[in-house]
């Protein structure tokens, strides 16, 4: 591709020297450097450029490995047994192998977001041209691409500018991936540093993908008042033909919406989405509906709601075509990355494809032209819906009770269930006429259908659970705030000071997938708790849907109860997975816009600022995917702690601080160069917790930063202490490590806390101007 090239073609030109005909000139690249900010020290970092920074963090937060597998089988020397300190045939030990798997996960995640962005940018350039201006928030946003500016030093202005950024990411991700080859990297921390690098690329990939679509597809532009969107299976009007899209890349669904608009069909069909594509459908067209998170794919399809299923990319069940075929719903695979084995019909006339799908001649097709996807999907839905009449494979309750009698109570289902659900007991009751226990499983079931795979009598256990929960499912009529995109510069200016001083106790980003340990309600409860405590609560992805899926005592969803502002007590949904970049972007903008730290190619300084000053925590309560790993890695490398739910332990490596090791918690005071002990703030960089109660206490603690003023610290401590008393029944026993002066202690708790900390031999210390980077010390003295 010559996408970076300037290509000049002159048919005929008269000059002083004569007549020039058919002249073609190609130049490699024009550098338009109108950005006045001087270039920082690390533009377009290579794979080792930021290694020292990574190792600084990794020294503070050392890996704790939880090998999910004792063997390595990645090359034909293997399988190698890595137990008992044994090394594989290539010399690798289990710690490095565990970090290598983390690197692989982060590289896959980063590649996925970047490839998504590449597809998006290529498609949008084809449609709108390279010179189409980027606009993510009109006059409200001057720093349009904080992550990209920070890491690459490029300030993109037009769609075409994004190509160069993606070229860079693709190169770096290839390097990261190559390091996982046998006999390349061998040191665990170097694998980790490369995983951080993949995370940085992932943040860029997400940002590019989202700013490209925000700029071109009429999405809300950094709008705190983005509209409320209907959410839940109960909101879908099944009297109309229903087109359902699953995945993350909205381009094929835009084809559907455009076709409907062009043919005045906006009112006559339902277009619904599941997982992140739902957000991006509704960011473009507020009549679209959000079915729910990724774990509801089978609920919706087996329930018979979808007349046509469009698959784009990422997190799509790979057996979805079997499931759709069972309910007679044709499938359109619309992504080159997810062809599902279907015949490529991209170049066939739309009506021929429609006829084949409607007649059932073929259960599914591959169409790689989004406009054709739109036409085919709409026509098929219109013709199939009257025939299907919401055909479902969910059995009737009486049938379930009958089938339950065939259960052998072998417990294989439970032993295959990631949630350890007591299915056999529920079926025993069902056989005796009560479906209460089955109904209770509905909230906790993550829809994986692993139980069905092992059942010796082939019971459709997941379908039983859906049917038992059907009443609840149909009552799911909620609202989710439409993904607003970026945070406005003015919002950053307003909250910059209270965040950095600690007076806004924290930014809680509740992101990621729906592999929850006990249903989505935990996400709602956590978001609401912290919004009430005047934290800034940011949501995205499936977590944003789960947060919107429950109501308060007044019948309001969380998005109706709280404003969508990036402000204390706001609950704002940034949007789909790729919109996660705006969360990192907001932290970066605090450092740049509020604190005036140079942004361009200045990664270490900005990350150091964020790590020491911005009390932000990411919570991925149901994180499951490789993309979630790479998103987390992007936050780790910025020094932002990430907390995952219990299933997140399967990422097999934590990054943990040791609060009991005093020497780990020293920072430089940038004013003097002195080393100051600031305590475990924040204590961990990547941690799994077991319960929502533990998550809440941990979130409050992880928001503590060395830079907090005494007022800010006392506010943060009051939340930490209060939650600890509520859920742990006591004042935190490590409280002495967070009190620097008596003024840090919340007023109402002064006596109790003074007593505890004095017993522990607490000594007053100073509040530094904290940094981990010796080069940022202003007063020059020898740094040891």
């Amino acid at each position, binding site marked *: 591709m010559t996408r970076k090239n300037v290509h000049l073609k002159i048919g005929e030109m008269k000059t002083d020297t004569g007549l020039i005909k058919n002249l073609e000139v190609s130049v490699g690249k024009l550098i338009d450097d109108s950005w006045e900010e001087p270039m920082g020290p690390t533009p377009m970092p290579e794979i080792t450029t930021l290694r020292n920074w990574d190792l600084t963090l990794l020294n503070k937060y050392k890996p*704790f*490995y*939880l*090998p*999910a*597998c*004792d*063997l390595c089988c990645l090359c034909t020397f293997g399988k190698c*047994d*890595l*137990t*008992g*300190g044994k090394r594989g045939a290539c010399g690798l030990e*289990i*710690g490095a192998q565990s970090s290598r798997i983390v690197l692989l996960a982060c590289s896959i995640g980063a590649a996925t977001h970047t490839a998504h962005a590449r597809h998006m940018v290529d498609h949008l350039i084809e449609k709108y041209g390279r010179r189409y201006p980027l606009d993510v928030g009109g006059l409200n946003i001057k720093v349009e691409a904080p992550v990209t500016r920070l890491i690459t030093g490029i300030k993109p202005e037009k769609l075409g500018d994004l190509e160069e950024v993606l070229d860079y990411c693709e190169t770096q991700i290839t390097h990261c991936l190559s390091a996982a080859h046998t006999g390349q990297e061998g040191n665990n921390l170097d694998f980790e540093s490369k995983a951080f690098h993949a995370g940085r690329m992932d943040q860029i990939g997400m940002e590019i993908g989202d700013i490209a679509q925000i700029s071109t597809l009429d999405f809300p532009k950094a709008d705190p008042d983005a509209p409320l969107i209907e959410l839940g299976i109960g909101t879908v009007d099944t009297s109309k033909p229903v087109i359902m899209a699953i995945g993350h890349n909205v381009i094929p669904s835009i084809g559907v919406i455009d076709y409907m608009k062009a043919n005045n069909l906006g009112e006559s069909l339902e277009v619904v989405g599941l997982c992140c594509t739902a957000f991006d459908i509704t960011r473009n067209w507020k009549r679209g509906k959000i079915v729910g998170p990724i774990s509801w794919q089978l609920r919706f399809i087996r329930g018979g709601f979808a007349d046509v299923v469009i698959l784009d990319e990422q997190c799509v069940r790979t057996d979805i075509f079997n499931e759709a075929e069972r309910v007679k719903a044709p499938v359109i695979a619309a992504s080159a990355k997810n062809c599902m084995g279907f015949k490529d019909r991209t170049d066939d006339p739309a009506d021929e494809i429609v006829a084949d799908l409607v007649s059932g001649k073929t259960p599914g097709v591959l169409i790689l032209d989004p406009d054709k996807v739109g036409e085919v999907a709409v026509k098929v839905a219109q013709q199939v819906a009257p025939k299907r009449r919401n055909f479902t494979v969910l059995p009737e309750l009486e049938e379930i009770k009958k089938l339950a009698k065939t259960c052998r109570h072998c417990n*294989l289902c439970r*032993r*295959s269930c*990631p949630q*350890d659900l007591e299915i056999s007991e529920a079926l025993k009751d069902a056989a005796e006429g009560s479906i209460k226990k089955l109904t209770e499983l509905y909230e906790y079931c993550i829809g994986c259908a692993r139980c069905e795979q*092992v059942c010796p009598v082939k019971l459709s256990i997941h379908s039983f659970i859906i049917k038992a929960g059907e009443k609840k499912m149909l009552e799911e009529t909620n609202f989710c705030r439409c993904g607003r995109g970026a945070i406005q510069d003015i919002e950053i200016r307003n909250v910059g000071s209270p965040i950095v001083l600690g007076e806004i106790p924290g930014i809680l980003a509740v992101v990621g997938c729906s592999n929850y*340990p006990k249903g989505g309600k935990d996400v709602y409860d956590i978001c609401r708790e912290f919004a009430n405590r005047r934290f800034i609560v940011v949501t995205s992805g499936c977590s944003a849907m789960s947060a919107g899926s429950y109501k308060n005592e007044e019948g309001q969803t969380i998005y109706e109860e709280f404003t969508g502002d990036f402000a204390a007590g706001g609950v704002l949904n940034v949007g789909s997975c790729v919109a996660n970049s705006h969360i990192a972007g907001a932290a970066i903008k605090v450092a740049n816009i509020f604190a005036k730290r140079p942004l361009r190619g200045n990664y270490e300084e900005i990350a150091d600022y964020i790590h020491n000053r911005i009390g932000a925590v990411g919570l991925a309560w149901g994180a499951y995917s490789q993309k979630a790993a790479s998103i987390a890695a992007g936050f780790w490398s910025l020094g932002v702690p990430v907390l995952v739910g*219990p*299933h997140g*332990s*399967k990422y*097999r490596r*934590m990054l*943990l601080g*040791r609060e*009991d090791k005093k020497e780990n918690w020293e920072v430089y005071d940038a004013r003097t160069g002195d080393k100051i002990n600031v305590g475990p703030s924040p204590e*961990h960089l990547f*941690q*799994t*917790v*077991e*319960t929502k*109660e*533990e998550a809440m*206490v*941990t979130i409050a603690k992880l928001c503590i930063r060395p830079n907090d003023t005494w007022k800010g610290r006392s506010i943060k401590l009051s939340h930490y202490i209060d939650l600890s008393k509520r*859920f*742990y*029944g*006591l004042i935190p*026993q490590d409280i002495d490590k967070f009190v620097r002066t008596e003024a840090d202690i919340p007023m109402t708790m002064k006596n109790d806390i003074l007593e505890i900390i004095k017993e522990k031999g607490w000594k007053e210390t100073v509040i530094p101007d904290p940094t981990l980077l010796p080069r940022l010390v202003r007063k020059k003295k020898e740094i040891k």
Partner: protein
Amino acid sequence: MSCEPWQCAEVSSTKKAMAITKPEVAISLIRRANRPILVVGSNAINRKLEGKLLIDYLIDFAKASKIPIVATAHMVGEFLKRGYKPAGFMSAMDIGNRLVDPEWQGIDGKGPHDLAVFVALPYYMQGLILSGLMHFATKLKTLTLDNMYHPHASWSFPNAGVGIWAENLKVMTSKFEGGQ
């Protein structure tokens, strides 16, 4: 009784926990240890055995055996509510991370533990921590008290129903109480 992992896919490779067929074996392992600890996870309040919560069995057992308890998640509050003060509390990952450190002087600061007994964490999470300890805490032995077989432990009870589980816990408690 079976010595397959409770969750079918949680297979181990070349090392597999020794199955404990009688509670007496667990008692003797704990007795023989110089510095055992018992790590109790969040399922302590989710599992009911013969009408009594697991946490109540564990309190009885800890009182009888004098084994110090480290409560994970928010279990410290549940212990305190029941009038029992655990020796310590921290997240499951923190206790795992400390146990792999040969320098760590234990929950009471008196020296490294030589036996870590686990119970009641989510199965997969406990399995992963046991795997981490198997690989990286070479001097530590691990034992599980659940009714779910944990292949990554040094010793584990096999999969069993709650009736047998309750019986095992009661026997262990009474033998310690009786000083047997």
